């Protein structure tokens, strides 16, 4: 058997070999010695946010630690919370009778509602009930979720007492991590864009084709997987959100798009998302896609009963 490990050419003799071997031996020993301080496993570096009182945003009263789903197992109603999480992730597949659009809740509430500026659910459980300008009356969390079902999902509301609604609320309650009602986590649900900018839909269409169409389709049709489940939601057309959705409004859409889209283009962040577009880019592309054809919202006649309609409202 020849020395296959070294793969020596025929001319080589062991005399030639000795010196490199010595060098290598010294090298291996030095390496072995340098490796003595072996590192230890590290724990999760959980994202943390300040807690503030609902009255005074400057009064720092503690820390909110973003939970990982594995900690749901410690909850007595773990099964319900996991079900709620799945309903929010895969709404269309699991609740086809209530979702008209090809959308999931978490199409917009990115990374399971755990990301500031990405429509998080972190404060949702404590934020409601509240008087909302759009409806002009007090809305509780269930009412707010059903609002989404009728607008963004272009579907039908769920029974307030249904296991599905209760499960979604249970997930949001768990995500609040026992934050008292008088406190809130110091994060913003949406980022800022300059609302004095005028959207240019022609430029917006150019941006759309470069940075959005790969996933959302050249005709805004979105993308489904082989089972027909939503991968990327449609941005216009019959299967998209209706004109009653916040996302149908230019500046609301722009604030979402700027900080959360595209996904999978950064090496930071849970979705590797956002922070590619300028304010003008975001307003232009949002002006373009929000104003493409989409379903009507029959309940629009009741919106903004007390006035103060925002300038980008669609009706």
């Amino acid at each position, binding site marked *: 058997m020849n020395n296959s490990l070294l793969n020596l050419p025929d001319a080589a003799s062991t005399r030639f070999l000795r010196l490199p071997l010595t*060098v290598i031996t010294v090298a291996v020993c030095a390496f072995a010695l340098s490796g003595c301080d072996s590192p*230890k*496993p590290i724990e999760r570096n959980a994202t943390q946010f300040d807690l503030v009182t609902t009255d005074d945003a400057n009064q720092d009263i503690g820390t909110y630690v973003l939970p990982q789903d594995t900690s749901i197992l410690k909850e007595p109603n773990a099964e319900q919370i996991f079900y709620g999480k799945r309903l929010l*992730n895969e709404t269309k597949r699991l609740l086809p009778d209530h979702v008209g659009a090809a959308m999931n809740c978490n199409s917009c509430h990115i990374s399971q509602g755990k990301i500031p500026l990405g429509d998080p659910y972190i404060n949702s459980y404590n934020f409601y009930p509240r008087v909302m300008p759009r409806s002009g009356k007090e809305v509780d969390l269930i009412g707010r979720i059903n609002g989404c079902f009728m607008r963004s999902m272009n579907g039908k509301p769920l029974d307030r007492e249904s296991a599905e609604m209760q499960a979604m609320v249970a997930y949001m309650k768990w995500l609040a991590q026992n934050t008292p009602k008088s406190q809130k986590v110091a994060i913003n649900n949406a980022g800022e864009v300059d609302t004095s900018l005028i959207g240019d839909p022609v430029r917006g269409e150019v*941006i759309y084709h470069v940075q959005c169409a790969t996933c959302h389709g050249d005709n805004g049709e979105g993308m489904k997987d082989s089972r027909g489940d939503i991968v990327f939601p449609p941005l216009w057309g019959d299967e998209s959100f209706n004109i009653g959705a916040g996302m149908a409004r230019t500046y609301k859409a722009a604030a979402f798009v700027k900080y959360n889209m595209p*996904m999978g283009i950064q*090496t930071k962040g849970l979705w590797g998302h956002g922070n590619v577009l300028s304010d003008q880019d975001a307003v232009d592309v949002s002006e373009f896609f929000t104003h493409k054809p989409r379903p009507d919202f029959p309940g629009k006649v009741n919106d903004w009963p007390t006035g103060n309609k925002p300038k980008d409202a669609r009706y």
Partner: protein
Amino acid sequence: MKKWPAIIGALGVGGLALAFTLGQVLPSLRTSNSVIQVDINDPELIKKGEYIARTADCVACHSTLEGEPYAGGLPMLTPLGAIYSTNITPDKDTGIGNYSFDDFNNATKHGVRKDNSALYPAMPYPSYQIMPDEDMAAMYAFFMSGVKAVKQPNRASELPPVLNWRWPLAYWQALFAPEREFIPASDDAMLARGQYLIEGPGHCGSCHTERGIGFQELALSNADSEEFLSGAVIDGWRAKSLRGEHDGLATWSTAELVDFFKTGRTETTAAFGAMAEVVEHSTQYMTEGDLYAMSAYLKTLSPKPGEAVTIAAKEDITTQKLLDGVYDSRGAILYAEYCQICHRADGKGVPRIFPALDGNSAVYSRDADSVLQITLSGGRMPDTPHDRMAFTMPEFINLSDADVAEVVNYIRNSWTNQGSEINVDDVVQMRHFLSKKPKTATDLPPDLSITAAAEGAKP
């Protein structure tokens, strides 16, 4: 009795002196003088040289992320300290501006510098050695006239004294980089071209062939042995086997390989890590004919001995469990939270956007370095004009080491995948390694600005 130590000492010193002297002479035995006169101002020759330099991927190692092309300075980490690639721009003081064609040829093909000392084998001259002098002439013309001169002094290596001596490398060269010619394994001109590109300029074996204790590639061609391109681990990446076994290229078609070289992705996978760099800097620029030739040649390589060509079928029970919310392990919960949105319940990903994990040998291969590295540090697929966008995998650096091990074990053994178990220590080691590793271009997000999109002339 007392004389022996002195005699041994004297013999040792004498032997070292002899070895040193011989080490000074050895490189000059490798060099050659050619009769070629190179017209470095011939535009056709410069253009040809530019293409050959792409096939040899010089730019990948001889540039840094922030630096000028070919100005050198990229650290190559060795266990004993970094060595740095050199400035190969035509600058006369700090680059290769004073190199004659013979100097250039001897350095590139034989690993001998202008000052007659040996180059570190980080430079793949054992591969480049089979390149014809005419091609080297074209490359010389390109480097002299087609590359911008950059004044940037070379960085000294960080190797400790004694180990940084260059003369022992002359022995390494004599042993491991013997003079060799290109011997086509086939009469088919196309296959021979592919073999030449793989063995020579492409220097695929630098990463994909296992190295011996002298850091030498165990085979420089398929004729040497079936170790050639049978897979290796380098820079915390597993460079997969390119031979015919299941873990290798058995499941790849020639068309898929061409697509992969050209665009950095296929319907089910994407280049990542060091291979993403190769596609971005080198193969995306190659002609369809050359890419087909390389792909067809790779498909002729027999399976690595002892490795299975097919693996036992395994039924996918994972997809249905994930769809039903049956999370029967911590790994499943982690997958559903962090991975499923892109890689999907069926582990098939999204064609050309998010790579499949099911059936992906980078995921289930015996050595889990690749899947560990990309999970911890993220990465980007190559950016080429063939696809509108290049997508990234975000880093999951904030997960605990134990959870990374859980989720990696989960994807290595879910769907139809069958991988060995890794443990927490593997994650610890990889995190430790990554803390020292310099970032490269595909560790960073793509430039998606409107200007970049316009300049990229993408459809």
